[in-house]
């Protein structure tokens, strides 16, 4: 409990009241006392205050007026009005304009006030939690919408191509090269399959609990390269791994990250005959692992740098294996889950380097 104190701001133009409040509660709460509204806002702007108390009668601005502005600028803060004198208009204004959460009559009883503050702190936390959950829900909802939209295209498009090819081979009786059609059907099937695999990776990443496992980077990189070599044998890999220091984190997510980044490094290669090269460097340290995946491919246009991690963002890629627009999004999501970071450096026409820092959970 001591770690996260309840942060209380108390505004009163009489210093005696402020001192009495501080003396009474300094052992319980983190207390910020101010005698004017300007200082109160300075603090509210900079510190996450949970509960604001204000006296009603102050020379420049009444407590109600103060809370009206607090409600506009910091709507999450709990507002408690303290007042010695009461008339019904003040109460009406306090509720309607100041949107106060509680009304406390002076002189206050310390036990009662402590109780009020603690109860409302719980309310504050619950509201905040609700807000966070709402934001998460909103994000999930947006993703679902984009997913349905994309599914209507990316999942259907290869199927429609296949249907079209089947129809065509029925019509085209003089076709001398049936393998041409079969090859195109195969490439459509592979495209659909990679999209489905990506979606499954995405949902596994979103759901699964993070694990703490020993990571053998050499093995993960070798696995990724072995699979990708099937699609393109011309790529030259240079792998430098220094993982003598033990590294622990979630293997599934690191696998997903490596697979996607290495597959991109291969996918977005130049088509001018340049030998595609991929450099993979990994170094483990007590607190982090540093990864770098560099290619000499087409690079990323400056104007696309901000968008590449968005869901279903695609640029024009190689003709052989166009992107699905979900790979880097999954990388970013997986990194969020394990607390890693990623940086991109790219020169259009020269190549791209992804640099990652992953936290080491090994103690």
């Amino acid at each position, binding site marked *: 409990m001591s770690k996260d104190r309840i942060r209380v701001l108390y505004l009163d133009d009489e210093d005696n009241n402020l001192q009495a409040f501080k003396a009474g509660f300094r052992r319980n709460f983190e207390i910020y006392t101010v005698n004017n509204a300007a200082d109160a806002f300075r603090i509210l702007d900079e510190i996450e205050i949970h509960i604001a108390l204000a006296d009603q009668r102050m020379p420049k601005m009444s407590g109600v007026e103060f809370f009206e502005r607090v409600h506009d600028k910091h709507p999450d803060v709990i507002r408690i009005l303290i007042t010695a004198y009461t008339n019904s208009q003040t109460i009406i204004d306090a509720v309607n304009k100041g949107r106060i959460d509680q009304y406390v009559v002076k002189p206050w009883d310390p036990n009662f006030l402590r109780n009020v503050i603690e109860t409302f702190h719980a309310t504050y936390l619950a509201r905040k939690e609700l807000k966070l959950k709402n934001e998460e829900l909103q994000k999930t909802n947006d993703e679902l919408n984009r997913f349905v939209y994309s599914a*209507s295209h990316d999942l259907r498009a290869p199927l*429609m*191509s296949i249907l079209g090819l089947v*129809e065509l081979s029925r019509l085209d009786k003089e076709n001398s090269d049936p393998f041409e059609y079969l090859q195109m059907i195969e490439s459509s099937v592979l495209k659909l399959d990679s999209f489905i695999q990506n979606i499954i990776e995405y949902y596994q990443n979103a759901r699964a609990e993070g694990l703490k496992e020993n990571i053998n980077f050499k093995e993960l990189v070798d696995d990724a390269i072995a699979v990708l070599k099937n699609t393109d044998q011309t790529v030259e890999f240079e792998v430098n791994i220094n993982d003598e220091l033990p590294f622990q984190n979630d293997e599934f997510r690191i696998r997903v990250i490596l697979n996607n980044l290495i597959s991109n490094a291969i996918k977005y290669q130049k088509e001018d005959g340049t030998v595609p090269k991929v450099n993979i460097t990994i170094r483990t340290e007590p607190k982090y692992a540093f990864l770098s995946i560099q290619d000499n491919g087409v690079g990323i246009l400056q104007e696309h740098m901000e968008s590449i991690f968005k869901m279903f963002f*695609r640029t024009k890629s190689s003709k052989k294996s166009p992107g699905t627009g979900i790979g880097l999004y999954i990388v970013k999501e997986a990194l969020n889950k394990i607390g890693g970071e990623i940086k991109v450096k790219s020169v259009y026409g020269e190549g791209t380097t992804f640099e990652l820092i992953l936290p080491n959970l090994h103690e």
Partner: protein
Amino acid sequence: MSKSQPHIILVDDNEIDLFLHEKLIKLAGISNHVDKFLSGKAALDYLQNTTPDIILLDIQMPEMDGFEFLSFYDRFYSDREQETRIFMVSSSLDFGDISKAKASPLVSEFIKKPLNIVELKEALGREGF
């Protein structure tokens, strides 16, 4: 405005569909004059100096989708004397996409993928081809 060999351009990011559509158009005897473009931008560049009779336009394409293509087309090419009919061709089942395609004054018709010779001939026929 009926022509025996209308000039048709295909705009689609999927090479297989481009191949497929060209074959179908030729097999159906609609035209032998077909040009293919893998992106909206490449097609717009080509349109600077050429006015085809028909454009078959995909919707979902990276960098510039079919609707973005239409808005560029509207700004730069839509007031030419010789008319070009634009047909949107897509596998999309998205209600928004289909409604937008049908609502656009530039678009003659929305045609579902996979492209089917009978439907294509009928759609072109309604526009006098």
